[in-house]
């Protein structure tokens, strides 16, 4: 038996919608098999992984807290990937955004002004954008592969953060814990509702997603992103500059990752510490693809991926399996998404040895 692909005459709308759902179902099946292999009852494991977190108000808030950075980063990445710029260093831009955004509360803990929070957010955006500007500069100036440089910068950012909180930024009264002082109340991103922890970061994420959706759908800029992503040469013919698009997409995605970073630190941690992200920057890559690089789709996929984080924590408590399972889920999901996307452009036929001989005769 072998698999044969046949190019569709036009992109299948049906499968464009169906493919992420199909991928989800396949991931659930894969998860059930995984739980079974780990000696757990697949039904109850999946229930505590994917359903239980949705039943309580506080955990819905938790979902929004986790989804906010994923959506913010992923919508930025979708602009990059649509324009054929492969920024995979969002984790580093997230880290740097968190650092630059925290400069004010860390260095001026006594400054009590309503101005501080907006300034922090702006500085977080600027920090993330500038950090993403490094691979952009290297790509436009030296033709350097942005995949590798943006990824190397992740490690450098994390080491920089580690140095900061163990060195100059460490709270002298912190019993030698590697972390800064807790932010003053004015520097904390407030909660959206009284009922729980979800902070305004989630609102930023929704606003960013809708704004970029509008841009991609209705504005010439969105058209430019798509043209340059599909053919640089045709883009040049249209008078668009691939070089400027590298800058645009990297700065936008870096800025949004930076905003996610400072929102996370200010909204849900309250101080700076060596570990501020459970890999949001990398998980956002999955979010972007699962959302089919469409900002509105990314809102949905961000929530799904946030659920895998929550479910991992829940499953660890209730049925005693490691939260690493959520990483496996995420990886599986991305694989199934990529496989199912083939259906959008191709018709898949299974050829059996017997039927082929028939065709030849």
């Amino acid at each position, binding site marked *: 038996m072998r698999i044969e692909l*046949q190019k569709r*005459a*036009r*992109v299948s709308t049906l499968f464009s919608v169906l493919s992420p759902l199909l991928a989800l179902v396949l991931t659930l099946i894969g998860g059930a098999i995984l739980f079974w292999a780990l000696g757990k009852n697949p039904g109850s494991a999946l229930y505590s992984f994917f359903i239980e977190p949705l039943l309580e108000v506080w955990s819905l808030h938790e979902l929004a807290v986790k989804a906010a950075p994923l959506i913010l980063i992923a919508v930025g990445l979708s602009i990059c990937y649509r324009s054929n710029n492969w920024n995979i260093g969002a984790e580093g831009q997230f880290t740097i955004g968190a650092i630059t955004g925290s400069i004010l509360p860390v260095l001026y803990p006594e400054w009590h002004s309503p101005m501080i929070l907006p300034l922090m957010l702006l500085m977080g955006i600027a920090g993330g954008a500038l950090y993403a500007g490094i691979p952009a500069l290297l790509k436009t100036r030296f033709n350097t592969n942005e995949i590798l440089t943006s990824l190397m910068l992740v490690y450098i950012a994390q080491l920089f953060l580690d140095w900061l909180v163990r060195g100059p930024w460490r709270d002298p009264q912190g019993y030698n814990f590697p972390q800064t002082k807790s932010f003053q109340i004015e520097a904390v991103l407030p909660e959206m509702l009284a009922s729980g922890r979800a902070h305004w970061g989630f609102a930023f994420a929704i606003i960013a997603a809708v704004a970029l959706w509008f841009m991609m759908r*209705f*504005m*010439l*800029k969105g*058209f430019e992103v*798509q*043209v340059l992503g*599909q*053919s640089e*040469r*045709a883009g*040049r*013919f*249209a*008078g668009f500059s691939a070089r400027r698009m590298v800058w645009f997409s990297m700065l936008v995605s870096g800025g949004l990752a930076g905003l996610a970073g400072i929102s996370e630190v200010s909204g849900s941690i309250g101080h700076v510490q060596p570990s501020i992200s459970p890999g949001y920057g990398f998980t956002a890559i999955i979010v972007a693809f699962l959302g089919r690089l469409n900002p509105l789709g990314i809102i949905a996929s961000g929530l799904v991926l946030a659920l895998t984080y929550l479910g991992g924590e829940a499953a660890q408590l209730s049925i005693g399996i490691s939260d690493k399972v959520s990483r496996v889920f995420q990886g599986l999901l991305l694989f199934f998404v990529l496989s199912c996307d083939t259906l959008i452009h191709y018709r898949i036929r299974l050829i059996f040895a017997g039927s082929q001989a028939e*065709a*030849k005769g």
Partner: protein
Amino acid sequence: MTFSESEQAASLLSVRGLTKLFGDFAACSGIDLDIAPGEIHALLGENGAGKSTLVKMLFGVLQPSGGQIVWQGNPLTIGSPGEARQLGIGMVFQHFSLFEALTVAENIALSLDPKTPLAKIAEEAASLSKAYGLPLDPYAHVADLSVGERQRIEIVRALLQNPKLIILDEPTSVLTPQEADRLFETLFKLKSEGRSVLYISHRLEEVRRICDRATVLRHGKVTGACDPRQETPASLARMMVGTEVAAVHRDETVALGDVQLDVTDLTVKARSPFAVSLKNISMRVRAGEILAIAGIAGNGQSELFDALSGEYPVADDDRIKVRGKSVGRTGINGRRLLGASFVPEERHGHAAVPGMSLTDNLLLARSQPDRKAFLSGGLASIVRSGAIRLATKRICQQMDVRKSGENPLAGSLSGGNLQKFVVGRELDRQPSIMIVNQPTWGVDAGAASRIRQALIDLAKSGSAVVVISQDLDEIFEVATNIAVISEGKLSEPHPVGSLSLERIGLMMGGIHESHSIPDAMPSSPEATHAH
């Protein structure tokens, strides 16, 4: 079976009812073909008639959906190119199947017995190429070779396997008339050795000149089998195209107006290792004039187009003037705003994005020159899809673009229809200057004549037109003046009546006026194309 035993025995290769389906589409259906030993057999047909699909099946690249192939009297299936080669079938591809990063000898080795050492292959290739008058350096890298030299590699590669049948797919489309003559001599030598040649072409003159028999394909079916020497070009064309192709009409008495495009001493360094530098190019094109730039592929045509269009602006502003304004440093949209319009050679991924709809592809070329019509919302630049849809519809009607559905992806259109759209997109602006690179490359005859007529009409209405083309027939059909580009240098323009085909051929080969060539070449008396 419908053919007699004797017929089958006499044929080197017989094909009966050969069919190839791609999904629902029949690229070839029920093809019958017989090739006798020692004949040069022409396979005639337009682009898309199924010629390439047919020969790919004969060479084992594609598997037929139905029908039979009989080789020297034995029915068989050809499962792979390797099997075809073992039978004694050699192939010279149209788009060369060469590897740029490898040497000539390595390229040849890829299709030979893996046990033969590379040094021996190089030696044999060198001696064989000498014997057939096809000089080659076996250790040169393909990337450094000219198109003609690359074709020699393909031919030598096929000959090294001592084939009984050699298939050549559109071999002269990349050659100068003189190079083509040399190729014909090689073919006659092969024929005299008793080998057969299947010669695929859409050029009627050369088929009439060298082929013993011809099979004509149209829409995947055989529409005629004949002795081409007994036919006229017109009768062959009828078999090929089905109906009479509308002849292109030209009014000889168009008065020329002001200079619209003025290029002075333009020199541009090559941007990449595989590109050509432009050297001291000058040209002036007046309103009402069609300047055709002839030349073999890879002599600087695309570089010239890039400089003229402003996709790659040049350093000195005064080198290029559009309607009196210096625009050397201006980008493509600045030049469009001055009334210039451009049609690049490559449709997929340059003139159009195949994965985008026609309306998107309209916006591609016209977002800036037609800002007011197609965009709104000031700086936000909101795309006005209603207006764009109307304009797309208008263009499709005007140029008779055949498509499935209201607004299909550009990539789903046939080459001819997409080219009509791409040209129509520019004509719709009524440009005062139009620069077109290879306007009818890979386009069916109907679309080609429509496009050529449109260019002539545009010039008649007072625009200046530059046509860069490899197709000499096309050039003689549309041009008022002809210049030749060779190795990045452009000759003086000549009025179309004052040039013979031979002279253009020599100029295309890099021999310019300064060498003073006689108009008629006594050394090649057979090279007299009637025009």
